[in-house]
């Protein structure tokens, strides 16, 4: 009798600072800026043998009708320095930051990410996002300059260019022989030249080869363009699908796209965001989940959720009444600004929402509860472990990104109660297998561009 070995669950911990899901109202909620918050979550996740710690990014504060949202958590530290500081207080866990390909330049970001990789002994990763809007652009010298259709061409060339820079030092470029006085093997260390539609740069890169060959590349975005970009370029996908069967459809689609790009599909991991609620019994957990959702969906959060699709002021509509009877207004200036997710077809979304509301007889509040991303894994620790493990073993994904519903202690319960069960089942390692993020994820180092060129 042969048994297939259990898939090892990849776990990432997420500090969701800026959103309406993380409850600042929670009695144990702490700062979303203080470094201790990040230290707490990263160290807890490391105790649970998580693969990486993860931060999202938003480069402008959210606004409604020209005024900063006052009801959700807002304000966050800068991603890269937080991760560099965490490298000093953790030993094994990967450090993955979301960084925009539109509002950065390859040379600068390549050097920051590779510096982070050195400073963490090979634990860095980059979640490449492509938000591009003019609203965010107002915070930058270069402005909101990129047509939406071009954001992936820029991102694609951006990643390629960054990889050329990361590869620009040979593994043995530094000799540092005190006796002979030879520091560099030759004067070509870091030499690069890139000419493309987006970037035309040349010179010498300042950061030597990474301790893990290259930092990990993560992608987040689900359009066909985004999927192809990921299949061709990334090591990991941060997906929004954490429920079967749509999660499995996405999984199958991505792995076959990776195959079509000539890649080993096992080297492209899919990891959706997911939530959990743990209780002493099912009933207890469900009651907790209901209460959390209630706290998340305050009147204004509900109103804003609909407004970002309708693009209208909906403050006159009763939250506990029927859906607005008007059509969306795509022509007006955006009422909600600064959200990462942009609805592509407002009319189609409204049509689907009306259908859902009719079928289930929902009020505005009821609809918001229905469409809001809710915890997928609810129950006793054993049930949460079961649910998560089944999801992974059935190829819903390769792992999950977990965020507690409050910061920073929200992950503790998972690590203390669910992790040991997963380890007992053999679905989660009991210790780190290597020293770099690549080692731990089982994703090999890509071949060096320079070497390919040299042998071609």
């Amino acid at each position, binding site marked *: 009798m042969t048994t297939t070995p259990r898939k090892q669950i990849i776990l990432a911990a997420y500090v969701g600072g*800026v959103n309406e899901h993380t409850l*600042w*109202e929670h009695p144990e909620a702490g700062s979303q*800026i203080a*470094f201790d918050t990040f230290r707490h979550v990263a160290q807890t996740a490391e105790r649970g043998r998580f693969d990486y710690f993860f931060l999202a990014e938003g*480069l*402008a*504060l959210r606004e409604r009708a020209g*005024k*900063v*949202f*006052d*009801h959700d958590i*807002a*304000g*966050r*530290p*800068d991603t*890269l*320095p937080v991760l*560099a*500081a965490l*490298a*000093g*207080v953790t030993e094994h866990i990967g450090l993955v930051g979301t960084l925009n390909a539109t509002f950065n*330049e390859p040379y*600068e970001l390549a050097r*920051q990410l590779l*510096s*982070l990789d*050195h*400073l*963490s002994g090979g634990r860095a990763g980059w979640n490449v996002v492509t938000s591009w809007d003019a609203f965010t652009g*107002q*915070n*930058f*010298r*270069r402005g909101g300059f990129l047509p939406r259709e071009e954001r992936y061409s820029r991102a694609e060339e951006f990643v390629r260019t960054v990889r050329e820079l990361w590869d620009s*030092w040979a593994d043995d470029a*530094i000799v*540092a022989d*005190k006796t002979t*006085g*030879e*520091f560099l*093997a030759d*004067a070509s*260390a*870091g030499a690069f030249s890139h000419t493309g539609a987006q*970037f*035309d*740069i*040349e*010179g*010498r*890169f*300042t*950061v*030597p080869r990474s301790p893990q060959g290259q930092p990990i590349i993560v992608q987040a975005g689900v359009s066909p363009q985004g999927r192809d970009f990921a299949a061709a370029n990334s090591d990991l996908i941060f997906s929004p699908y954490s429920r079967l069967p749509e999660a499995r459809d996405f999984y199958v689609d991505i792995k076959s796209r990776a195959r079509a790009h000539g890649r080993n599909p096992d080297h492209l991991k899919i990891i959706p965001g997911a939530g959990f609620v743990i209780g002493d019994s099912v009933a207890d957990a469900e009651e907790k989940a209901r209460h959390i959702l209630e706290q998340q969906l305050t*009147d204004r959060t509900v109103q804003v959720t609909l407004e970002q699709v309708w693009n209208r002021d909906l403050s006159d509509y009763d939250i506990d009444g029927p859906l607005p009877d008007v059509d969306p207004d795509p022509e007006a200036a955006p009422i909600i600004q600064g959200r990462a997710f942009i609805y592509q077809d407002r009319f189609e979304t409204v049509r689907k929402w009306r259908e859902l509301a009719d079928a289930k007889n929902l009020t505005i509040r009821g609809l918001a509860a229905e469409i809001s991303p809710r915890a997928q894994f609810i129950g006793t620790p054993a049930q949460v472990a079961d649910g998560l493990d089944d999801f992974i073993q059935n190829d819903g994904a390769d792992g999950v990104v977990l965020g507690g519903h409050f910061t920073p202690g929200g992950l503790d319960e998972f690590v203390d109660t669910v992790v040991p069960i997963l380890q007992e089942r053999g679905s989660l390692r009991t210790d780190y297998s290597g020293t770099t993020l690549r080692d731990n994820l089982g994703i090999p180092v890509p071949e060096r561009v320079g070497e390919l060129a040299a042998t071609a």
Partner: protein
Amino acid sequence: MTTNDKIRLGIALEGAGWHPSAWREPSSRPRELFSPAYWTDLVRLADRGHIDFATIEDSFGLQSSRPFEPDDRTDEVRGRLDALLLAARLAPVTERIGLIPTVTTTHTEPFHVSKAVATLDYASLGRAGWQPKVSGRADEARHVGRRDIPEIVDYNNDPAVQAVVAELFAEAADVVEVVRRLWDSWEDGAEIRDVATDRFLDADKLHTIDFASERFSIRGPSITPRPPQGQPVVAALAHAELPYRFAATSADLVFVTPLDVASAASILDQVRDAEASVAREGEPLRVYADIVVFLDGEEPAAARLARLDGLGRPLTSDTRIFTGSAGELAEEIEALAALGYSGVRLRPGVLTDDLPRIVEDLVPALRHREALAVEDAPVSLRTRLGLPTTVPNRYSPALAG
């Protein structure tokens, strides 16, 4: 002397040290220049050794023996890590020392710089600074590819080049202004967490900065709340009138490069003139003298320098190169303080040799003379440097009137 008259000590971190052959000394760890262990060892030593702050050099180009262009030497240290991220890595493993990384103003987005330095301030619990630096090198501009900067061949005799450099400094002043406004764009106490009214923020305490100059415009507010120090410390290196004016406009501290006591006095006058010419308001610019330092050990410092000079390219410097005993250096430093200098920034010739001697010999010598401002408890960098710690926010109603 009151605490404010006492001397502060900074240390300037650069590779294996400021001598081009420093990496070849027995104590040096050239293979570890990119590993965090090397930097944490050194900076923790300085942290425990009463050094007030450490600056970290950086640039978008490789180190070079030539001022405005790259070279192709293979016998000196080449390559470096991003200084701000290195400072962030050091923040949670140090307790007292100020951390002042260099970040260029020419190619960066001020929005990114502002939140990065603010975050360093959070991670270090109020010990962050920033050394803004103009990048005048053509090769660095080609690394970024967004603008051309002409090769600087003869600065002194080429008015076109002088115009470019003046523009780069004007732009740097814009960048610092944007960064400072973004630090203020959240008033203290903007985060209210008021469950009763379902408000996390008091939106009236957040401000767009609406900066617009002929170079760029930036809206704000920052995504990062006002950092612990309010305004982290801004320090600029300056050698001439134009950068003195930049420092007088934009910085809290200026690092200057006197070659001897006489030039130290005249530089101080020039800095004060620059402050007057830009009509600086508020606190006077704190002036620190840079000194390259080789201290006597088992081998006399002068012999050590001569030996290192014989290994490859001899050391040349824009500032005073000191060789001698800790006691002699302490005397020089006291002479600078008597002129009105706030302190010195020491550039160790060989980091792994001269930093330990600074900590073990120079600091006790200065303490013995009661010349050193002593602050043993962890405090903010502003406190340590004798700068005001309640920093008015330009957007708070009290000021806006």
